[in-house]
């Protein structure tokens, strides 16, 4: 099992957001997490990635058999956890090339590998750029600075392709995308699917799941996963909205 979350409780500034989440993800699977706004979807993603503003008050997260809470943010990333941000941060002055080279080489160092030679690195960049249909010369641009919403999301998938994570969590990667960008992002994900990695796709809408077909769909509501099913659950949610869940939960 790649990821095992048991009875996870997490809070921010004393306010409890996650109230006992249980989730299991195996290699080769794609999980979708859906739910109304403000129910803890992004919090769950952040807590897995190790964001320090959240306090884990109970429960555990095991990843590849390791207790994630003992690992720093960067060590989780080096172990293969990738978070695609809902709102990618603009970092003026840090070029994408420099950013990715630093990231790739720090991960390689962690794995006991030598830094990637410059030429090889640049070839890798070109290859992965094609994967997400990035045609512009983004390499000299600062990370996300002045990017459109679509460019930022494509850039997230590009980074994911560069780092080849074991577990990718995509936090509302579809939000703010037009249909073309959505298709490109989804294609990128589909091309990166392998039997030895897994995806957790957080989305508010069913639309993305037309392109990225999930094996499992979970509904997160008020800090708990209240319903799980196959991909047909997403269609049901699309049709009925979230109100019936709310009613069911009373």
């Amino acid at each position, binding site marked *: 099992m790649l990821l095992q979350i048991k009875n996870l409780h997490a809070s921010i500034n004393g306010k409890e957001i996650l109230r006992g989440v249980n989730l299991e993800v195996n290699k080769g699977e794609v999980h979708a997490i859906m739910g109304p706004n403000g129910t803890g979807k992004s919090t769950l993603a952040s807590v897995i990635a190790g964001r320090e503003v959240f306090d884990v008050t109970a429960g555990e997260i095991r990843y590849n058999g390791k207790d994630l809470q003992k690992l720093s943010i960067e060590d989780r990333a080096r172990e293969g956890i990738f978070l695609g941000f809902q709102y990618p941060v603009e970092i*003026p002055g840090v070029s994408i090339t420099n950013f990715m080279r630093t990231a790739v080489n720090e991960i390689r160092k962690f794995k006991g590998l030598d830094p990637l030679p410059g030429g090889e690195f640049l070839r890798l960049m070109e290859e992965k750029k094609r994967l997400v249909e990035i045609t512009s010369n983004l390499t000299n641009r600062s990370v996300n600075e002045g990017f459109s919403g679509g460019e930022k999301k494509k850039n997230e998938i590009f980074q994911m392709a560069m780092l080849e994570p074991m577990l990718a969590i995509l936090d509302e990667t579809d939000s703010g995308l037009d249909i073309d960008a959505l298709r490109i992002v989804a294609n990128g994900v589909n091309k990166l699917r392998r039997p030895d990695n897994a995806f957790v796709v957080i989305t508010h809408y069913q639309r993305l799941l037309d392109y990225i077909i999930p094996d499992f769909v979970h509904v997160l509501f008020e800090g708990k996963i209240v319903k799980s099913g196959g991909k047909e659950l997403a269609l049901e949610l699309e049709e009925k909205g979230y109100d019936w869940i709310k009613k069911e939960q009373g």
Partner: protein
Amino acid sequence: MQTNIKEPITLERFTGLYQKNRAFLMVNDTPMLAGKRDRAFEAFSTLGFPDTSMETWRLTNLDESFSRGYDYHLRPMEEVDIQKVFRCNIPHLDTAVIGQLNGWYVSKDVPLMELGNGIIMGSLAEARKKYPQLVEKYFGTMADDTSDGFTALNTAFVQDGVFIYVPDNVKSPKPVQLINVIHHEENLFLQSRNLILVGANAKLSLVHCDDSYNHQASFSNIVTEIHVGEHGVMDHYKLQNLNNNSTLISSVFFRLEASASLDSHYISLNGGLLRNNIWVLFNGPHGNANIYGIYLMDRKQHVDNQVFVDHAWPDCSSNETFKGILDEHARAIFNGHVLVRRDATKTDARQSNKNILLTDTARVNSKPFLEIYNDDVKCSHGSTTGQLDQESMFYLRQRGIGEETARMLLMFAFADEIVAKISIPQLRQRIEDMVKKRLQGELQICEQCVLHCSTPEHPVEFFIDMSKV
């Protein structure tokens, strides 16, 4: 008495010194310069040294710097052989180099270089002898002896410094590098005076470095006057890498004639107490001035940037962008004062100061200030002080970048906005390296400064290649 040693800096010391040495100081003066000297001395006697009761000195207390004993030499120290002290080695930066040691112009065999294109550069003392009319026309016309005690003191005691003259319509083919090195076995007080004249439609890039050679205490009072003629272009760099026992009062007066353009870059990497007084006067319409600053301070270092821009004419634009990163107990002050006079319509003036504090004990006082007497202007100012952005830190670390590396990347990116404005590519590359080293705590003073290397083990020459200038 030519020399006075190990005394603290007091008004009485310098008034006494002036009275005893007046005739000696005036040996090569034209009557006009002698008059200027006397008037400056009178002003200094009245003004004295600034103290914290003055608004622009409120946060910079010089008492400790003053109280150390310093030697002050009214003649170059004969015993120092510059050739044995340092070499200048800038492999890829092709510049004409002018060296100053302890405030004195060093290449005595070539006191003044007169190039085929009419450019003159070298010792101010020599220029005063050889081109008295040219010097008289400009010397002391930009610096204000009447309100600043340090400037008045500098004028009263002026002896040597650097003189550069770029005639009308001449574009200096390569940057000029002016290196001030302080090297002395005792604490040293020094003053030098630079006069830079850029003619109409002329161009000059000047890289002005202040460096220490050892850890001995020093107190420098340097005044530089820079005149840029109509449609002239000045690209100015002030690079400061001094030891922690050094006090530097650097006053630069820019006067820009109509349609003149100035880019000035203040890069403060090290220094005990650095005070940069920057005056910019628009002396005609359609001038443009960009003043950039970056300061990276730690320990108990203190940096104080005072920028005064006088929009005396219409249709001029000015932009001040200063950024700083402060660690440990460092202290930074930024005072930007833009004066828009009554007739200065269509003025475009911007001021910005941004700081990152890495500790609770580092401090910044920032005061961008606009004084506007005309309605038809565009002016803006802003100041921010904060920590490294936590969102950005999380983003970088989430990609596997370690915390320390992520901090470095963000600090460097912050500083790079200013470094990126350097228009000489080789210099930009080297300053980038220096900034990186500085942020990693690896930059030492002179010995490891990448701009010029000097070690007692490498006593190579201080070299000016005449064929190249």
